[in-house]
């Protein structure tokens, strides 16, 4: 066990994978000599060389497109998109090519890769360094979406993502890149995909299920602490893999509590929270004591100055939890 933060845990996962399997290559803007804009790929270039840690031209369409070709060749590319906000020039390649290759070729040409990219706000990054575009990828059939909240999960989920046969978008909550710290085992291990984790169990009869992921998990936990003081118990679920979702864990929890609050940074409308609420309505309708509730970013572009007003922080989660409990 070594104390790590999110950055070092992901870096460690990449090293473990690249040492074990020479098909694993990393490519992206400044991922090589510089070690990535957030230093997540630091040291890889030195250890594995420029043929496995590739500084690419500045073009996300090119990065994803070339990574698809490398995957078709037989490599296991891990492209880094510097910020999820920059992924859109590569979105066409992800949606029209990567997600559909296996299907349109009748299973003959799967293109396996793990696209790593930092997501989320709260870093004074403004509207082009702060977005959370998960629902835009969850909506596309053929993609899996992962978002760890802590170093242990980050390493284990990345190693699991690399083993998974399907393309994975690995969203890294950059607000907690360094603040999320914890013990991480050495070497290889996996945290299985599509398994959520109950990180705080409800204890009282008047309880609310709170679903969150990434950086907002910590806000949900902070809100849960305060809610407990106010007599409302929270069952906090870290989704970890957003898609395919671990619906059982969410639904079983809602059946226990009868109440659901979903927290995410992305805008509310057509956000992933909408899908979670719909699924819970379908699966746990008769158990609901209150309307499922979403605490999310607003339906605006991500702001610069007012980012702390935009984000669904604990002080916005708490009243939603209490209101849901007392509905």
């Amino acid at each position, binding site marked *: 066990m070594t104390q790590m933060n999110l950055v070092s845990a992901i870096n460690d996962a990449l090293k473990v994978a690249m040492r074990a399997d020479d098909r694993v290559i990393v490519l992206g803007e400044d991922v090589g000599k510089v070690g990535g804009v957030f230093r997540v790929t630091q040291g890889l270039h030195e250890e594995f060389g420029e043929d496995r840690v590739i500084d690419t031209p500045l073009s996300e369409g*090119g990065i994803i497109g070339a990574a698809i*070709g490398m995957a*078709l060749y037989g490599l296991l590319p891990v492209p880094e998109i510097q910020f999820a906000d920059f992924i859109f020039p590569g979105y066409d390649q992800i949606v029209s090519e990567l997600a559909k*290759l296996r299907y*349109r*070729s009748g299973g*003959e040409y799967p293109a396996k890769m793990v696209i790593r990219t930092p997501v989320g706000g709260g870093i004074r990054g403004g509207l082009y360094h702060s977005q959370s575009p998960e629902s835009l990828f969850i909506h596309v*059939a053929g993609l899996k979406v992962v978002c760890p909240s802590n170093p242990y999960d980050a390493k284990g989920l990345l190693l699991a993502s690399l083993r998974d046969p399907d393309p994975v978008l690995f969203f890294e909550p950059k607000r907690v890149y360094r603040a999320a710290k914890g013990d991480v085992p050495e070497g290889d291990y996996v945290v299985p995909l599509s398994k959520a984790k109950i990180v705080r169990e409800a204890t009282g009869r008047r309880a609310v299920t709170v679903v969150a992921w990434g950086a907002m998990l910590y806000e949900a936990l902070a809100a849960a602490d305060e809610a407990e003081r106010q007599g409302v118990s929270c069952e906090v679920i870290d989704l970890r893999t957003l898609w*395919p979702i671990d619906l059982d864990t969410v639904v079983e929890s809602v059946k226990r509590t009868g109440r659901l609050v979903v927290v995410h940074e992305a805008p509310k409308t057509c956000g992933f929270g909408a899908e979670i609420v719909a699924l819970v309505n379908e699966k746990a309708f008769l158990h609901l004591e209150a309307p499922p509730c979403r605490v999310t970013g607003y339906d605006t572009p991500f702001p610069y100055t007012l980012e702390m007003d935009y984000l669904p922080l604990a002080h916005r989660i708490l009243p939603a939890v209490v209101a849901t409990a007392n509905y």
Partner: protein
Amino acid sequence: MQDGTPATSETTASAGGVPSATPLERVLSPEGEVLDGGPVDVATAVGLFRHLVTARLLDLRFIALQRSGDIPFYASSLGEEGATSAPPFALDLGDAYFPGPRSALGSLVRGVSLSELVHQVFGTARSATRGRGLPHHVSSRENGVVSVGGVPGASLTHASGWGWAARMRGDRRACLAVVCGAAFASGGFHNALNFAGVGRANVVFACVVDGETLSSQTGSETVAEKGQAYGVPARRVDGRDALAVHAAIARALVSARDGGGPTLVEIVSPRAKPAEDGSIALPADDCPVLLLERCLARAGVDAAAVRAPLEAELDEAFRLAVAEARSSAAPGRASLFEDVYAEVPRHLLSQRDAAV
């Protein structure tokens, strides 16, 4: 001609008639003479001739099927058989072929059977693509024909990545990407050439253009000159001359295998397009099939003796393939949910169970 180096002629096909900086390469004169006076490689010429005849005949048959409503659409390469069939003819086993939307028939050159092609066009359960791709998007892993999508230029970048990977691995295999229609105007073309240039990728881009498309899609006189800006060597060949196309692609592939990086080959080729009344005038003087026929005649090969039995054989094979495809089952409804992911995930299982 033995070294595969085509001669060049001074004619150009550029729109304004202004001579281009990059000369248009030809091996044969319009009369079918080898321009540099050397002997013709008869085996190559006969092989190419058979593929050109095949492409010509099948294009007409598929167009007929589309007009009869049997298939919803079909992108033909009528008239540009040289540009369609000659490039993949230069590939080796193990190379990857990224076809363009108009080069479905090029897949036959790679070994895809006529039956498989027709099944894919009809989208039957027996097709490798399981009735999912567009009719003319042929994909066959067995034959190294890579699945392409509907976004112009997207697959060009894949070819760059494939070729980059091969170069990194010291692999002498190379790949060929067909740039069809106006894909050279897409962002994917830029990404592909830029990445290939940076990565010294084992890739050859075969860019099929006609004068009309060229003038409407770019301000430059040629596509080839764009290669210079990416540090990618470029050549221009006359698409009517299948031997010239083949030679240029073959040489570019050799260069790629030897670590020479990517090449852009602009293939200037007129395409037979339907007139307003729907009729299609086949090329006459410009016809790549006839040119090769003349060349073979000069080499003492009876082209008609090759062509007639081949056409009869193709007619029969096509008739059988279409009959078989028509009577084949559509893919089962459950297959709708397969191959989205490697394993059908739970949410799709429940949708499948509801649908089946």
